[in-house]
């Protein structure tokens, strides 16, 4: 009986959160289309999310591409390794690893800092102060982050795809001794527009999720430093999980029978 009550409470809690999150997202999206729009703040977020995430995402991508080439060589060594490896590297990167790894890295970097910044503003009443100064906090804080997340993650992932493929090339050519021209040709042959596009759609969705979770958790944080800490953790954990779930859903949409 007690266990049932516990499960019930957890489910109700979860649904309440989901409801609040949906309302939050709806409000935020509606503010995206109503002036004033703060262009300067959007540009600042572009730089924060896009530019400053480049090192993290680039490093993740290059080593993923390298390890993919190395690992698949073990499996394919006895067959026509050269074409198979280029194939594996480009398909896994564009379809899955590029968007998912970039998404998870950016969730840790950007989602956390959004939640911490907005959360601190909440508990120190700076968000209340915005309202009294005739500035809507959604337009000022949430909208720029959502737009930047939505637009910048695809750019990051495109760059990650290129860097990752380059990583595979480096291992293939310099370590495994493949012919460079053949490797590049095989890569071109294996590359499909649909793979890349599905990856970019995923990236846009992940960017939106990261910004939404960061802003939502920050906006609703309460109770001082501890509350801000909890909000930061929640933002990272919930956006990471949401990324993995949405990744499956989008894959199903593009490639499911």
């Amino acid at each position, binding site marked *: 009986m007690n266990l049932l009550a516990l499960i019930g409470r957890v489910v109700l809690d979860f649904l309440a959160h989901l409801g609040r999150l949906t309302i939050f997202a709806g409000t935020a999206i509606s*503010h995206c289309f*109503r002036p*004033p729009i703060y262009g300067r703040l959007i540009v600042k977020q572009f730089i924060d999310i896009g530019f400053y995430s480049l090192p993290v995402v680039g490093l993740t991508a290059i080593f993923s591409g390298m390890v993919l080439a190395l690992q698949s060589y073990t499996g394919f060594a006895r067959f026509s390794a050269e074409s198979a490896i280029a194939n594996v590297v480009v398909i896994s990167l564009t379809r899955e690893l590029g968007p998912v790894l970039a998404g998870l890295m950016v969730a840790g970097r950007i989602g956390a800092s959004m939640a911490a910044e907005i959360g601190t*503003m909440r508990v*120190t*009443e*700076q968000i*209340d*102060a915005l*309202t*009294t*100064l*005739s*500035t*809507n906090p*959604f337009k000022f804080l949430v909208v720029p982050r959502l737009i930047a997340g939505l637009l910048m993650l695809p750019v990051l992932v495109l760059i990650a795809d290129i860097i990752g493929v380059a990583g595979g090339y480096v291992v293939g050519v310099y370590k495994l001794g493949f012919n460079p021209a053949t490797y590049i040709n095989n890569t071109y042959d294996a590359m499909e527009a649909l793979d890349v596009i599905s990856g970019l759609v995923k990236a846009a969705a992940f960017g939106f999720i990261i910004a939404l979770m960061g802003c939502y958790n920050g906006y609703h944080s309460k109770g001082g430093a501890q509350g801000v800490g909890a909000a930061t953790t929640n933002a990272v954990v919930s956006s990471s999980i949401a990324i993995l779930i949405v990744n499956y859903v989008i894959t199903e949409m593009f490639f499911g029978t």
Partner: protein
Amino acid sequence: MTDVPKISLRGVAKAFGEKQVLSGIDLDIAAGESVVVIGGSGTGKSVLIKCILGILEADTGTIAVDGQNVMHLESNARDATNAKFGMLFQGGALFDSLPVWENVAFGLRARDRHLSRDTARAQAIETLAKVGLDEQVADLAPSELSGGMQKRVGLARAIAGRPEIVFFDEPTTGLDPIMSDVINDLIVSTVKKKGITALSITHDMQSARKIGDRIAMLYEGKLIWVGPAADVDSTENPYVQQFVHGRAEGPIKMQVRR
């Protein structure tokens, strides 16, 4: 026209879950009048102001500004109403990512988006001068200022937009007696003498006497006493007497445990 109160509260109530914080507040504030609300910690003074500002939604009752109902406004109407207001927050609530002058000019630039940076800065520095801060402070970050200076910057931000109504949430708390008096004088010179309507909150009786035309005492969700500032020392009301004289013994029982 002048008969319409600047702010009019009727039966304003607000609860957080089980906890009834405000239970039926009635108060009229005339244009140009300065009302001070006193009351113990946690009695809901800040909540009262936040309800008027629309930061919190009152559960029941009506709140009118210039005779216009301001409850449940959508965001653009809220922004328009809030253009009449200036607010000094209890904790300052300065934007720590912006330098002092941008804090002060924030409301000006939000309301007039064509205002040039230089004009905004000049106006901010002018307002800072009114609260006794010089130009060097303008480019500092709020975290580089002392508590008293932060209060003054908060005061400057509250009055920079030439509001018709200002709210001060504990303007002198945490300051030494001299700085408190400086802030009181600033409030008198920048608000009271300019005919701006003011609603202030304080625990500090000296401050209340100085900046208030009328004083209201909040206790257990209601305004149990409202009267001219001059009467606060002579009233028979035992609650007010206990508060004014700061006695532990009396009808007010501090809830040590909640």
